C-alpha cells in the first residue's frame, strides 16, 4: 500500500468538503502521518450531523526488543548478574527505565556508557527472559499521533465519539448527538470498501 494512495473527503456540501480536505492535509503533515496512513476516507454531513473518519494504516516498524539493541550474557561464574552490552544506543533511556521497573532500581547498574548489569540470583533464566522484553513500540507512538490528528480534524463540537481501532485500521464516528447505528454501519461499509480498492 502506497502512502495516502486513497484520500477522499466527501460531504453533501462540496465547498465544505474541499476546505476540510485542506484542514486534514495540514494536520496530517504537521503530525508527520502522511507516510503512515495508506488509505483515508472522511465523510461529513453537517445536517445529520455526523463526522466519519476511516483509515487503513500501513504496516510499520516492529517493536524494539532488548536483543535488537544489545548482547546479553550471563556474568562470570560466582557473580550473580547478567551483563547487557549495548550496540545501538538509540533506545538507552527507555531500556534503563524498563529494566528498573521490571527488576527494581537497586538491581540495575550502568558501570559505563555501553554496559548495564542486572543483579539476580538466577542469571541464566533472566538472561533468557530479558532478551524478549519490549523496549519501545513505534506503532504505539503512531497510534497516539493518530488519536491527536483525529481530535484536531474532528469538528470541535462533535463530542460524542465512537471508535474501533486495530493494528491496521481505524474507524471513527463523531457527532454532537447520540451516535446512530446507521452511522456506524456506514463507517463499516466505508472501511470494507477501502479494503477492496
Amino acid at each position: 500500500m502506497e502512502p495516502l494512495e486513497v484520500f477522499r473527503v466527501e460531504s453533501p456540501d462540496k465547498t465544505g468538503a474541499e476546505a476540510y480536505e485542506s484542514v486534514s492535509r495540514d494536520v496530517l503533515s504537521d503530525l508527520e502521518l502522511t507516510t503512515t496512513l495508506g488509505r483515508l476516507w472522511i465523510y461529513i454531513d453537517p445536517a445529520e450531523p455526523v463526522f466519519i473518519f476511516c483509515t487503513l494504516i500501513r504496516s510499520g516498524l516492529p517493536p524494539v526488543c532488548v536483543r535488537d539493541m544489545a548482547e546479553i550474557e550471563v556474568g562470570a561464574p560466582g557473580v550473580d548478574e547478567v551483563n547487557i552490552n549495548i550496540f545501538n544506543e538509540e533506545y538507552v533511556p527507555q531500556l534503563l527505565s524498563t529494566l528498573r521497573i521490571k527488576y527494581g532500581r537497586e538491581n540495575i547498574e550502568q558501570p559505563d556508557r555501553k554496559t548495564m548489569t542486572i543483579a539476580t540470583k538466577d542469571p541464566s533464566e533472566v538472561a533468557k527472559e530479558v532478551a524478549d522484553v519490549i523496549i519501545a513500540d513505534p506503532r504505539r507512538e503512531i497510534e497516539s499521533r493518530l488519536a491527536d490528528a483525529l481530535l484536531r480534524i474532528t469538528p470541535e463540537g462533535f463530542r460524542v465519539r465512537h471508535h474501533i481501532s486495530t493494528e491496521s485500521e481505524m474507524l471513527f464516528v463523531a457527532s454532537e448527538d447520540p451516535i446512530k447505528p446507521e452511522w456506524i454501519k456506514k463507517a463499516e461499509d466505508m472501511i470494507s470498501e477501502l479494503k477492496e480498492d
Partner: protein
Amino acid sequence: MLEPIIYEGGVFKHNLVTELVEDLGGYIIQTNFMQTEVRIQLLCPHEDMSMLEDLAKELRAKITRAPLTGTDIIVIAPTLAYHHLPHHACDVAEYMRRFGANTTLIGLARGVGRRIAQISAKERALADEHDLAIFTFGNFEDCLTKEKYVLYKDLEVPSIITGTPELIKAPAYAKAYVGGLGRIAHRLKGENELAALDKLAEVAGECLDEERLDIAKDPLTIQPARLMSELKEQVPAINKSLSPAPITLQLKGARIKLPYREYKEAIENMTFEEGTTLKEIADVLPSYVRDYLVIRILPKSVTGFVM
C-alpha cells in the same frame, strides 16, 4: 472632519509630524517604534491633508488612509482550543490591526457545534462594549446559515461573519458576510486568503463608516480623540501604563486601561476649558475587560451642546 491616517517612516525627524498634526488641530492616537522605523496612527483635519502629505514626501515616509483607526473591534472565534492552533481568527485580528483598529480576540466558552452552540451573557456584554464584532466561523453553509446565528443575534453592535462558502447574502441577523475565511489549519498566506482578509478589512471599514454616519446625525458632545488628549494631560497615571494602547479609542468613547475603582472619580471630575466636567457629558462605567474603565460619551440630544 478628521481623516484617519497611518504614517510609516523613519524615526529621524518624526517629531515634526507629531508637531504638525497637533498644530493643525489633529490628534496622535498611537506611536509604535520598530528599531529605526516608526508607525504613527493619527487623525488629521481633512482640509490640511496636503501639508501632511508634503511633509511625508520630504521625510521619505508613507502615509495611508486607515479607515479602522480609532475603532475597537472584537474578533470572536467559537473556540480557541490549543489543539486547533494556528487559529485563523488570530490572523484576522492581526490583519485588522494593520488597518489601524484595536482588536480584542476571544474564544467562546461554549461556542462550538451546531445545536449546542451558545454565548453567555458576559461574553455578549463584552462584545457589546466594542464598535464591531467579527465572528470567524467554519466551513459548512448549513451551519453558517441555520445554526450559528444564535451567537450574534442579540448583539447590539453590528456583526460581520466569515466562513468558507461564498454566500449571496449575509446570514440572518448579520450585518455582512465575507467568504473564503473558514476553518484553515495553517497561517493565512495564500493569495486567496490574503484577498479575503483585504475584503474583510474593506467590509469592516464600510460598516464602521455607516456607524459614523449614524452618530453624526446626533453628534457626540466631545470627540473621542479630544477626550483622549485631555485624559493624557489631566490623568498622568495613564502615561505610566505599560500597555501599548493605554487608551483605546472607540466610536462612542474610549476604554481606559486603569483600575475602575481607583480612577473613576479622578476621571469623572476632569474639567475641560469650556468649564464642564467629564461626568456632565459622559458615563464612566466599569469595563468587562479586566478591571478597566469605559467612557461612553453622551450625544448632543442628551447634553444639549457640542464642545
